[in-house]
């Protein structure tokens, strides 16, 4: 199809400036840039020797949060397992032994090898029970080792609870609307 005349636009290329045509200033500027960078602070991170400088919203190993009484915060609603695009979360719910919720997870297993660390479980969780930490060096000798069960995920919480900057995407432990305590607060308003 030929190009229609109305689609053609003529623009002025613009006159090159006299200084640009002399090139000398451009070359001097170029040398200035390279020489400045020669002595500038380097951005390379020497990983095995020093810890990498990760952004606070880095999505690493999951953790299962505890509430103020040390119990698992999860209410076994399956929202995370439903949201998970990799189907790596396996939950078995059981009647809760505690009066403030109906269910709790009897089994909570995340296949860390299958996980794609997209953070959708964290986004889906109504009670901020599951979070992605900034732990990045996840290793194991067997595949079975990389199936993180409830205890393991809670221990990740114990390890990372003191870290500053964890849980930047969640509400930092404040309970979501599905939680009873939060519900009371809402109705009280």
């Amino acid at each position: 199809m030929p190009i229609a005349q109305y689609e053609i636009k003529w623009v002025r290329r613009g006159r090159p400036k006299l200084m640009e045509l002399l090139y000398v200033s451009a070359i001097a500027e170029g040398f200035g840039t390279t020489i400045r960078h020669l002595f500038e602070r380097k951005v390379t991170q020497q990983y095995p020797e020093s810890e990498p400088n990760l952004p606070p919203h880095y999505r690493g190993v999951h953790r299962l949060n505890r509430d103020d009484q040390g119990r698992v915060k999860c209410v076994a609603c399956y929202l995370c397992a439903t949201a998970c695009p990799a189907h790596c979360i396996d939950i078995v719910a059981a009647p809760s032994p505690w009066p403030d919720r109906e269910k709790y997870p009897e089994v909570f297993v995340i296949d860390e090898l299958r996980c794609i660390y997209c953070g959708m479980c964290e986004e889906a969780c109504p009670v901020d029970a599951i979070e992605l930490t900034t732990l990045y060096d996840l290793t194991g000798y067997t595949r079975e080792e990389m199936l993180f069960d409830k205890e393991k995920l809670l221990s990740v919480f114990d390890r990372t609870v003191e870290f500053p900057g964890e849980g930047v995407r969640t509400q930092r432990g404040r309970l979501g609307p599905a939680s009873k305590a939060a519900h009371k607060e809402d109705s009280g308003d």
Partner: protein
Amino acid sequence: MIYEPVFTLLLIVVLLGLLQLACAYLILLERKMAAWVQDRLGPNRVGPKGLFQPVADGLKFLLKEQVVPGHVDKPAYFVAPAIAVVATTLGFAVVPFAPVAPGEERGLRFIIAPDLDIGILFFVAAGSLAVYAVLLAGWSSNNKYSFLGAIRSSAQLVSYEIPLGLAILGVVFAAGSFSISDMVVQQVRQGWNVLYQPIGFVVFFLSGLAECNRLPFDLPEAEQELVGGYHTEYSGLKFAFFFLGEYTHVISISFLCSLLYLGGWHLPGIGSAVLSGWGEWFLASLILWMKVTLFVLVIMLVRWTLPRFRYDQLMDMAWLGLMPLGLANIVILAVVAYGEVQPGWSGLVSVVFLASVGVGRALWFHLQPEESIRVLTQNDGVKTGVQGNGSSHAHSAV
């Protein structure tokens, strides 16, 4: 007398060893500088600060599999890397890499062939042989990328060899001799050539960059468009030979720049034409080596500063820029010599000439009629499209 050949042989061995070592560490320096300019750290795993990296590189080159593709023309393919090293190293036979030792006239000398009166000619001749390595490598590889690199190299050769020769002619003119040592002695007497023939220096340095295939003139091995250029099909030690040749060339061009234009081992107030003691000799060699290092650093810095010239731009620059400038340099020198005025006039006239040519060229391009270019718009071009045309472009030509 048995002493002479033995000494020469010893000198060759020492110089070859030194050159290889220098090349190995120049490659490390190049990688380090590349990293630093890009805000990285560069190789730092082998030894403290990566200082043993050249050893690792060398071992890797030695132990790697020597892949010889089935489609290459074997004799030329094998001979090319050898030429690359030999041709560039040959030039060092006439380069004085330290001042003449004090005391004995014929005793300790720091040039392999001191009696070669056509020293600089020999150097240029040997250096330009290196292009045969590129040509043969490109031709024998039977690979279109290698071949394109070789073609570019030959085109580059005819472009830069003439300005290079013209620039050297100016130095020969000033010294009245083809021997590099004489040229240094003359500069010690009169003053550095860079002050008397700045045009020659600029022309020589730019053609020198082209001669050793360094950016911005590394067209024969332009990675982005030619894969690896002429050494695409080479691996292992043969590839290392090309590398060695390139860096030897860088060193030799740096040597020549310092010897021909920056007074060699002379620094005002320190070095003198006739060295009286070993301390002075040591100082003078240090000055020479520092000048060479400076040039090597500049050449490496140029690599990370200036973009590569296009093929036709290089030809334009060499034929329409450097060659007339080289001729102008000789004319200025000749007129100043004939007029028997102060030799310092040549420097002044050269600078004024160079500046006026540069400004004139810029003005000429600046005053060209402004061009309009055609752009295609979206379908709403009716509303936004401007059909006006301020230049010689005719609509009908679209």
